[in-house]
């Protein structure tokens, strides 16, 4: 590094006006004048930049060097000058003893007369060195343009950085000694790295990172990821997977995520199960909750470390509320419950407490998204696992949801499952499928359900869920459809009739539910009243549910009434 910044303070010969200019600026400067060396020192003006000072120093130390190469022998004015120049070259580049004795005598005389520097100056090395050191700071500003003050500030930062690096090194040594179980020679205690020292180290690294970024920018020596700065992860070598240049379907990761993933690969490879791995999984889940491998690794950690499942469930609840459309969360919960169940299966109090806490959370999350399929399928699985079909709270909770939104098909479906999979009321196991009648179901249950469905249908006659449920209940209970004929007829009035003004067929109709028409068509067909059935279906095709015309027409064909014109 060429000396910088020292020339201003040093009283040195050659600070005249001639010396402030570089040799290149004065191509024909007479070199043999001694004035360049003998003039008294002059303080550099404070506003001069580092580059200028550097050059100034250089000319002082190497008065006869010419970096630009413009000076040549022929440019020098007098022969005496040329001789001096030649001598300066000779003394630095040649083994002087190879010249004869007389030549040496002359040479040394010239050197002493003109105070030529005898030490060699390798210009190529100098230029290479110049290139190696960054001449631009982190913001792209040329360091040569710095003023003295700025330069001093920068040097201070570099010194601070070095000190911090020393301290960090000391921390690492201390930790290494702790790992090996060293004993402190003075106090006799084993070496211990305290928590406060850990924290200090973390802060120190952040500070170092910041300084490096300020001094040298983000390339190379610059910013590192959060985990690389964390002393806890020092011993883990991350497995970095880089996409090849023209990778198919390449992915744009954020650097934090990429770094976290490379650490995850490393610990999964080494099958490490520890608190820091748990923290890492939590960090990655916050970045990308849909990554299924990290969930599985988290589960493995929890089971290996034998952490309390209920705490994990509490944490999971928070994540579930933030990520409503996530499969993995619910499968994770499934795994946790599978693991937890054996410990409470024989304790009815614990079972009911757990069921109650789960129900509370499910109610909370369903308030956010009432029809979330993952939540509902987990709920029905949980009911089966814990055996809470008969629990009135469960049924009431489902009823509440139907009350809030009678169109919630998930709630209806769950109710069907609760009522008709309850081992008290039904044949357990899969002897009778959901679509088959089950003789064990008590008549009063069927009545109750039919009544419930009818009540809810009246609130929203066009809602499919209620009608599907009603039908399902009748099938399950082995009832005939015609038992609800009068109920269905409540919704259809004056089918096919003309209105008072005689405006044409159908204008006198009042149909509150196309599903009622559908059911009536089926009932009439069962009873052999084919014309009535055909009327219902025809009105569905023409008016009440045109978009499904193909289906209604197929039903009409199935009546066997022959070709019909509308």
């Amino acid at each position, binding site marked *: 590094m060429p000396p910088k910044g020292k020339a201003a303070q040093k009283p040195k010969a050659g600070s005249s006006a001639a010396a402030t200019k570089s040799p290149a600026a004065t191509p024909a400067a007479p070199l043999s004048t001694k004035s360049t060396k003998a003039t008294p020192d002059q303080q550099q003006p404070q506003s001069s930049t580092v580059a200028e000072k550097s050059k100034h120093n250089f000319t002082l130390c190497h008065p006869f060097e010419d970096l630009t190469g413009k000076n040549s022998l022929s440019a020098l004015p007098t022969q005496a000058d040329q001789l001096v120049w030649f001598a300066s070259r000779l003394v630095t580049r040649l083994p002087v003893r190879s010249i004869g004795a007389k030549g040496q005598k002359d040479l040394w005389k010239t050197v002493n007369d003109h105070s030529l520097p005898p030490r060699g100056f390798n210009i190529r090395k100098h230029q290479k060195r110049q290139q190696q050191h960054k001449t631009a700071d982190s913001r792209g500003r040329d360091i040569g343009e710095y003023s003295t003050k700025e330069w001093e500030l920068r040097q201070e930062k570099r010194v601070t950085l070095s000190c911090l690096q020393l301290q960090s090194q000391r921390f690492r040594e201390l930790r290494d000694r702790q790992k090996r179980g060293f004993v402190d020679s003075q106090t006799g205690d084993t070496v211990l790295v305290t928590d406060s020292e850990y924290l200090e180290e973390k802060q120190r690294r952040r500070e170092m990172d910041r300084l490096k970024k300020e001094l040298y920018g983000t390339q190379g020596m610059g910013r590192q990821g959060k985990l690389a700065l964390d002393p806890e992860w020092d011993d883990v070598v991350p497995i970095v*997977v880089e996409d090849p240049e023209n*990778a*198919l*379907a*390449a*992915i*744009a990761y954020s650097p934090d995520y990429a770094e976290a*993933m490379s650490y995850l*690969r490393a610990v999964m490879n080494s099958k490490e199960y520890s608190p820091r791995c748990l923290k890492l999984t939590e960090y990655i889940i916050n970045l*990308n909750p*849909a*990554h299924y*491998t990290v969930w*599985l690794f988290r*589960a493995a950690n929890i089971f290996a470390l034998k952490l309390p499942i209920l705490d994990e469930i509490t944490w999971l609840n928070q994540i579930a509320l933030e990520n409503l459309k996530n*499969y993995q969360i619910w*499968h994770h919960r499934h*795994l946790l419950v599978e693991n937890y169940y054996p410990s409470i299966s024989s304790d009815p109090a614990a079972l009911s407490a757990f069921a109650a806490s789960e129900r509370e959370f499910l109610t909370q999350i369903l308030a956010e998204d009432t*029809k979330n*399929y993952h939540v509902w*399928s987990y709920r*029905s699985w949980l009911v089966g696992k814990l055996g809470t079909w008969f629990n009135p709270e469960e049924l009431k909770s489902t009823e509440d949801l139907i009350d809030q939104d009678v*169109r*919630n*098909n*998930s709630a209806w*479906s769950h109710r*069907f*499952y609760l009522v*008709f*999979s309850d081992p008290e009321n039904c044949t357990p196991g*899969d002897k009778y*499928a*959901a*679509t088959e009648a089950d003789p064990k179901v008590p008549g009063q249950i069927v009545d109750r359900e039919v009544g419930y469905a009818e009540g809810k249908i009246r609130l929203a006659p*066009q*809602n*499919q*869920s209620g009608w*599907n*449920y009603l*039908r*399902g209940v009748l099938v*399950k209970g082995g009832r005939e459809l015609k038992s609800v004929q009068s109920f269905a007829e409540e919704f259809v009035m004056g089918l096919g009739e003309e209105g008072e003004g005689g405006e044409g067929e159908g204008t006198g109709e009042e*149909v509150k539910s196309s599903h009622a028409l559908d059911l009536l068509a089926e009932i009439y067909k069962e009873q052999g009243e084919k014309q009535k059935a055909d009327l219902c279906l025809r009105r569905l*095709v*023409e*008016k*009440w*549910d*045109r*978009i*499904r*015309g*193909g*289906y209604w*027409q*197929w039903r009409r064909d199935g009546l066997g009434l022959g070709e019909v*014109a*509308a």
Partner: protein
Amino acid sequence: MSRSMWRRVQHPMDKHCSRYHSVTILPISGSCLSTGRLDLDGGAALQPQSGYIRSSTGNGGSTSVLAWDFNRTQLKTDHLSMTDTFQQLPEVLKLATSAHVKYIQSLDTRKDEYDYWLTEHLRLNGVYWGLTALYLLGVPEGLPRSETIDFVLSCQHESGGFGAAPGHDAHMLSTVSAVQILAMVDAFGELESRGKGKAQVGKYIANLQNRQTGTFAGDEWGEEDTRFLYGAFNALSLLGLMHLIDVDKAVDYVAACANFDGGYGVSPGAESHSGQIFTCVASLTIAKRQDLIDKERLGKWLSERQLANGGLNGRPEKKEDVCYSWWVLSSLEMIGKTHWIDRDKLINFILQCQDTEKGGISDRPGDMVDVWHTLFGITGLSLLGYPGLELVDEVYCLPKSTITRIFGP
């Protein structure tokens, strides 16, 4: 409960005079009123004022159309060729094929807006979606074949299974995507020579079956879902290795998932959902056990998925979404009841969901596009016989040409 409205109509494409139409609006479902569109037409191009029933002979050629004109309650027969119908549409309602191809091809560059969809755990699946869409759009060379094969094989593990990306653990879903991609590009030979071989893949899948219940897990951690069951059937039948698993037990499990409303859920007792219905019906179709399906009940339930704006939803009282134009439609196709929905309305809906400038299809009109919905919108259109698209196989979600090549005509 009905309202009649008389509106004067001028269709922008109509060269003829406007006609007066009587329209009856029915509050069949809440969304009918909210869409606001009355679907009135002045010419033959858009039909919706009358109901149309198409016979299922369509493969892009001409189909006969029975048009019911309700004002006059007469039966009219119009022979309209599908191509004519759709060529008369304005630009915005045609399929922007070249834009979609460009969109899919651009997915393999690093772009922020696709971050969410091309996340690491979906990368191989994303390639499958993109490639199938390109095949159906008639541009099979859109993604480079050898690079695709290299990428797919780089995701394979010792066990035979495939991960979602190189370095990822093997999982059923990515394994199935890998097998589907290799089937499409006809690379089972490369799987034998450079990969771990078909038998190893079959072994990996077969090991994921729960031999007590018959269902399949996604990976060694055991999440069970009928999606994985369908995936196993799909991949193993393509590889010709169905004998490795207990098909009957799996079929019993699927049958147990049948619900009181005719649909199927993710596991016995779970709510019926169109996606799960597709997996169950397709599994039963591959196992040649469609006799277990109550086709009328199921077809009715599926036909109820169509909303007044033509789109399909996944469950009662939910919003429409383009991807259900695959799950619901292919299920209907498999049980032979596609004519139970209004196909033109659905085509219109899908076409409205596309971004004709930048390409891609979104879940409903106006939302952000992504490759998942692009694929399923295109498969939906292909099933409905939209001209210019390759035929898609409703069971495997692969081009029909691939299926004929593997199984014979």
